[in-house]
């Protein structure tokens, strides 16, 4: 009940006082610790994921995490371990499966879609078997920042450190392999092994992000900051740093907004991340238009598609 009364305290309007107020309760301090750890790992791995155009793999891994979390709750252990077990297992599974070439593209979609839905249905079964937990399903699907224990923060931190060290080790060849797989392969970079390693790291990041945003909204921390940063700058080091910064700001703002309002954190984090993404698109479009007007209409480049549409 302490949590319930602390869920939406009034804003005083004094920024310093409001920020201090955020850290009064230990559960909020833990939420910020966890959010910070998750935002850094999800940002770094998400950046590579967007570069490698694997955003739906990340989404699938997170969806598979949902029955894991529900099953862990059913067994009476922390949902966090369920996320990790299922997300990483799913990553290994996807990596080991032979890519179904030759068959129709749309049949592959039907299979992927059906299996993803089946995992969601399994999560629902576990929740139904665990009586009196129907409320908890919303926090598994749409995120929650309440009740993160010290131990969970430590687990999140250890996994994040492992993930970041691994990324530091494989970062350069992975970047090479992501940008031009064929050339990298010719140069002797183990492209396939790197892909498998990255998928497993992605499973870890998806599990961590699920802890904050829930299984269904991991796009907010895995994809949107990276997509925003890559829209703003194309230089790898800058956009990677920018991704982490955007992820951190979005998470912190989301936590603060969720603390001071009755609305769920998943909504706030997706909204802030999406706002940043839309702004970067608008700014990019405006910049292009400005440059175009400064240079004038580019000569010698007839629009080939203009006549085709008609």
């Amino acid at each position, binding site marked *: 009940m302490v949590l319930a009364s602390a869920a939406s305290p009034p804003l005083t309007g004094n920024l310093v006082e409001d920020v201090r107020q955020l850290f009064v309760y230990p559960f909020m301090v833990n939420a910020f610790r966890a959010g910070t750890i998750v935002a850094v790992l999800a940002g770094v791995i998400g950046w590579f994921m967007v570069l490698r155009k694997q955003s739906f793999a990340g989404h699938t891994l997170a969806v598979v995490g949902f029955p894991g979390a529900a099953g862990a709750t059913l067994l009476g252990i922390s949902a966090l371990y369920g996320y990790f077990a299922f997300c990483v297992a799913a990553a290994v599974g996807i990596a080991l499966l032979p890519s179904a070439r030759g068959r129709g593209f749309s049949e592959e979609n039907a299979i992927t879609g059906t299996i993803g839905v*089946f995992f969601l249905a399994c999560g629902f079964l576990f929740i139904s078997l665990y009586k009196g937990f129907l409320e908890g399903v919303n926090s598994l699907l749409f995120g929650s920042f309440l009740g993160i224990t010290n131990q969970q923060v430590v687990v999140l931190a250890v996994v994040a450190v492992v993930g970041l060290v691994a990324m530091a080790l494989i970062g350069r060849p992975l970047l090479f392999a992501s940008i031009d797989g064929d050339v990298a392969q010719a140069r002797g970079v183990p492209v396939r092994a790197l892909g498998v390693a990255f998928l497993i790291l992605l499973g870890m990041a998806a599990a961590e992000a699920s802890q904050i945003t829930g299984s269904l909204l991991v796009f907010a921390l895995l994809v949107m900051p990276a997509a925003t940063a890559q829209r703003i700058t194309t230089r790898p080091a800058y956009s990677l740093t920018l991704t982490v910064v955007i992820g951190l700001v979005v998470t912190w703002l989301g936590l603060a907004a969720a603390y001071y309002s009755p609305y769920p954190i998943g909504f706030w984090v997706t909204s802030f991340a999406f706002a940043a993404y839309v702004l970067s698109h608008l700014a990019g479009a405006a910049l292009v238009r400005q440059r175009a007007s400064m240079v004038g209409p580019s000569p010698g480049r007839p629009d080939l598609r203009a006549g085709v549409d008609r």
Partner: protein
Amino acid sequence: MIPTLLAIQGGLAGMFDQPFMQNALVAGTCIAAASGLVGYFLVLRSQVFTADALSHVAFTGALAALAFGVDLRLGLFVATVGVGLFMGTLEPRGRADDVVVGSVFAWVLGLGALFLTIYTTTRSTGNGTAGVNVLFGSIFGLSRSQAWTAAAVAVGIVVVVCIVARPLLFSSIDVDVAAARGVPVRLIGFVFLGVVGACAAEATQAVGALLLLGLLAAPAGAAHRLTGRPVVAMVLASALAVGEMWAGLALSYWAPSIPPSFAILAVATGVFLGVLVVTQVRGREKAKSPVAQFEAARR
């Protein structure tokens, strides 16, 4: 074997006397038939993930309606049919970027979570399980009038698809030839996505927003695998969906701790995977047969 069968029969006794089961069967049968038929075309047109996108929209639409105090189904249908038609207008420009699509629909889902909180905290009639019911369906909770309305709309969907079936099939298999022959390809694609929207709203009432993709994709995928003949595959997809719906409902009635939407999806996934394995094995055997080896050698 016989004792188990008897036990199952005993467990299912009186199934058809229960009003909630009658409603579920009426609505479920019609919704499944419509979903199988629409799903056949979704798989054929490589638009399976349209249904995925619509599932996010269905959740948010239904919860928005509840938050504003109107009938859930109104929000559901307006949102799914509206977004379906909107996607129809985008169609010719090709597939949008995965990142853009994913981000937009993740945000839509976040908005749904907001409406859910507004509904559960402000509406005095609000109950905490509304979100779960929309996400995972509550086919046993349908009232008689809701069931018959859902059945009537499903029949309407089947009729519309049957009317446009021939040109839709033609334009799905070869857009350019169909357009050259004077088939209104764009109009048909537009109408079809509207129908997909309505079907998504229907399936939400049966298995929930998060699981509707399975009801659309699994029977249709199996039917595509089993036969290449369009009309047979259409009927088969519908029949499979209806059979899976019945099996799921009976399973859930027999073992009440299993929710119906899980049972339906489990049967549908099992059938689809079974069909995949069987056709794969049969395909391999055919390749090993002397005739096939002879033909391969001649090539």
